């Protein structure tokens, strides 16, 4: 896809995503019924969970692109991984900020070692590690390889972290465990949630394409600057 094509595609997805976001806000505020146990604060769920989903999508996508990069050494794959990780960092930050807002009301404390929250926190650190490694080498190629290794090992570790934090949770049960279990949700809540996931995925991919176009232009600019020098 050309850079211009990517920007057109990105614009289309972002506009679609924004319209979807408006619809999602409307659904979350006015349409969906209030959860009985937790009350209104449970509505955070409709942005919290899609954001978490998107950040996992991001690391999976980045790990895939990184693996392909190590194999094929095509800079475009590395750029795709970089852009996905950046998006993942944004969405993981969203999860980590909305989570405590919910937790304070639902559990009376800003932070609990709830498995998914813990998992996202660790994922956030993996994202940060990716950037630290990438920016701390003198030879950019080396930084790209190192970062790719971080993304791949990070993604591989996710299932282990997930299982372990759930197990850790079961070892120390809390008096109030309000775990939103997807499939047992009432129909309208499930619909809102799934719609939220769709909207966030659209926004992620739209902005990802934009970000990717920027990286492509930057590579072009670097190339041009070099041939002039």
């Amino acid at each position, binding site marked *: 896809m050309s850079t211009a094509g990517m920007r057109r595609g990105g614009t289309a997805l972002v506009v679609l995503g924004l319209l979807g976001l408006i619809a999602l806000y409307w659904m979350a*505020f006015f349409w969906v019924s209030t959860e009985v146990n937790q009350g*209104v604060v449970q509505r955070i769920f409709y*942005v919290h969970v899609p954001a978490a989903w998107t950040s996992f999508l991001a690391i999976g996508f980045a790990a895939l692109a990184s693996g392909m990069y190590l194999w094929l050494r095509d800079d475009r794959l590395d750029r795709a991984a970089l852009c996905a990780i950046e998006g993942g960092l*944004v969405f993981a930050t969203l999860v980590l900020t909305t989570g405590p*807002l919910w937790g304070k*009301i639902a559990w009376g404390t800003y932070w609990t070692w709830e498995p998914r929250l813990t998992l996202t926190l660790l994922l956030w650190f993996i994202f940060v590690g990716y950037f630290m490694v990438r920016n701390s080498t003198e030879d950019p190629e080396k930084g790209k390889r190192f970062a790719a290794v971080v993304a791949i090992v990070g993604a591989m570790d996710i299932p282990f972290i997930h299982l372990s934090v759930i197990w850790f949770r079961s070892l120390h049960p809390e008096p109030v465990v309000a775990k939103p279990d997807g499939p047992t949700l009432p129909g309208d809540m499930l619909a809102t949630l799934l719609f939220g996931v769709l909207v966030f995925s659209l926004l992620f991919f739209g*902005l990802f394409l934009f970000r990717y176009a920027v990286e492509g232009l930057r590579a072009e600019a670097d190339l041009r600057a070099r041939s002039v020098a």
Partner: protein
Amino acid sequence: MKNSTIRAVALSLAALAIMAVRGVAQESAAMPQASALAEQNLRPYWHVFAAYALVIVLIGGWAVSIARRLRAIEDRLAD
């Protein structure tokens, strides 16, 4: 993104916010409770609003930063 797009989005978001505040006001007005208790009950609403505002701030912030970088690179390429 063009400025007109940004303006349109901002307007619709503002409209949505006004609608949401009115909706909440109606809902909480419908609950006859002592003022201290009402304040207590409003807190979850603020948390929900903060969370939904954060979504806009963070995703919008990312979009704006991408747009700024895009412009900087385009300037570099135009030179």
